[in-house]
């Protein structure tokens, strides 16, 4: 799931649960998740073996 899809789904869920205060936190978490995934991708080029290995 992309971060964009995840955020859209999370915001919908927060709205359904009547938790509007979660919106800015979810948006901040999305930025953090993007950063984590980018860091993961940067290092995986060097370190990660293919899944079947």
């Amino acid at each position: 799931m992309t971060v964009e899809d995840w955020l859209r789904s999370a915001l919908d869920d927060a709205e359904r649960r009547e938790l509007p205060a979660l919106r800015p936190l979810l948006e901040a978490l999305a930025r953090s998740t993007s950063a984590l995934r980018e860091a993961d991708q940067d290092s995986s080029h060097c370190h990660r073996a293919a899944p079947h290995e």
Partner: protein
Amino acid sequence: MTIADLAPRIARGEVSPVELVRACVARIEARRDLNAFITVLDTTALATAREAEVEIAAGRYLGPLHGIPVSIKDLVHVAGVPTTSGSAVPALHPTADAPIVRRLREAGAIIIGKTNLHEFAFGTTSDETAFGAVHHPLDHERSPGGSSGGAAVALVEGMCLASIGTDTGGSIRIPSAACGTVGLKPTHGELPLDGIVPLSPTCDHVGPMALTVEDARLVFQALKGLKGTMGPTGTTGTTPGLPRRITFGVPSGYLLERLDSDVRDTLGRVRAELAREGHSVIDVEIDGSRATPDTYLHIVLPEAAWYHAATLDSHPFGYSPGVRLRLQLGGYVLAEDYVRAMQRRERLTSAVDQALGACDALLLPSLAIPAPVIGAQSVEIDGRTEPLRAAMLRLTQLFNLTGHPAIALPAGVNRSGLPISMQLVTARHQTDQLLAIAGAVEARLQIMTGPGSVGGGTG
């Protein structure tokens, strides 16, 4: 007065544990405005002190903690006393002591009470608590840090001679730094966490907070279940293997990029002083450390959400709004991102190991800013505004991820008189070595802060 000063006098019958407990209780009563304690165990503490006095008089002295009043963060189970975790959600009612409390009692320590904290240890300012914000002893408008805020205030105000705190992102070291005391986070897993309400089980630590490194060492020995010993003068003894010339590594890059100017100046002075004393101070790189906060977030949030899931459903409004939101947020972290963060954590651990391969200890501040104003949400550092919580966690949370032992040491005050603190970090499972190095730094720099230096405690 420190434990190392008092213990020989207690052993000789010159100082009465009963009088010691009375003095601590008097300090608690005198500074109720600071909200340091949630539960004061004055009656049982006095009864235990009377027993200690009898035992010591009969020649059954247990060691340096015998008759010493110690406070316990109200996240840790003490048999027969509610564990509130600083929250309005229903308290737990333990029937048994946490193992670390049992060990303290076996060493003769007297449990004086349970200290206030940031609710469920999920914050760095100790102002989100159902028992009233904890206030800094030097400035009522400021926070003592957190989450073990009450523990630090109790210690520095002479309400006890040592405190037990917990540390998931810096919750022992941050309030120790803000209040000018010593705070030790041992190696992860070195002390048992049973009987302690978790925040993030893979990042949680428990440890001592004390006025000096020697006192922290004495309490740490008891927490490990070892019989405490003191040097002949009551000062930190030398440890076999401690090099005469210590190599300190100052991390370059991310960790020290943004520091309050007084904190930065103090680091420079400490660095120069250590070099002047003949030690070596080098720059070291911690590869990938910029990923620390993102890694930390994706581990702590879901682990905290896991523990609180049922209570969030049954008592959502028992939580402070900010803590409730952070716990709810944790439920949204995807499993794949948690796994990514755990993998990133392994790389960070290797990077810290590698940095420590070039030095005996890392040297960096414990807290990038002085004690913040209560209620502040952001802070300006070097002309740039950032969230307060992120700024307070920046220098400590890495070592919760990696499990390396770390200690906060008083290192003077800023131009407003607020404490500044340095942090030392050593290799995993080398906590005794860390304490020895910290003792050397404390002695060399003469930066030891005694009781009463902040707030006039009598303990």
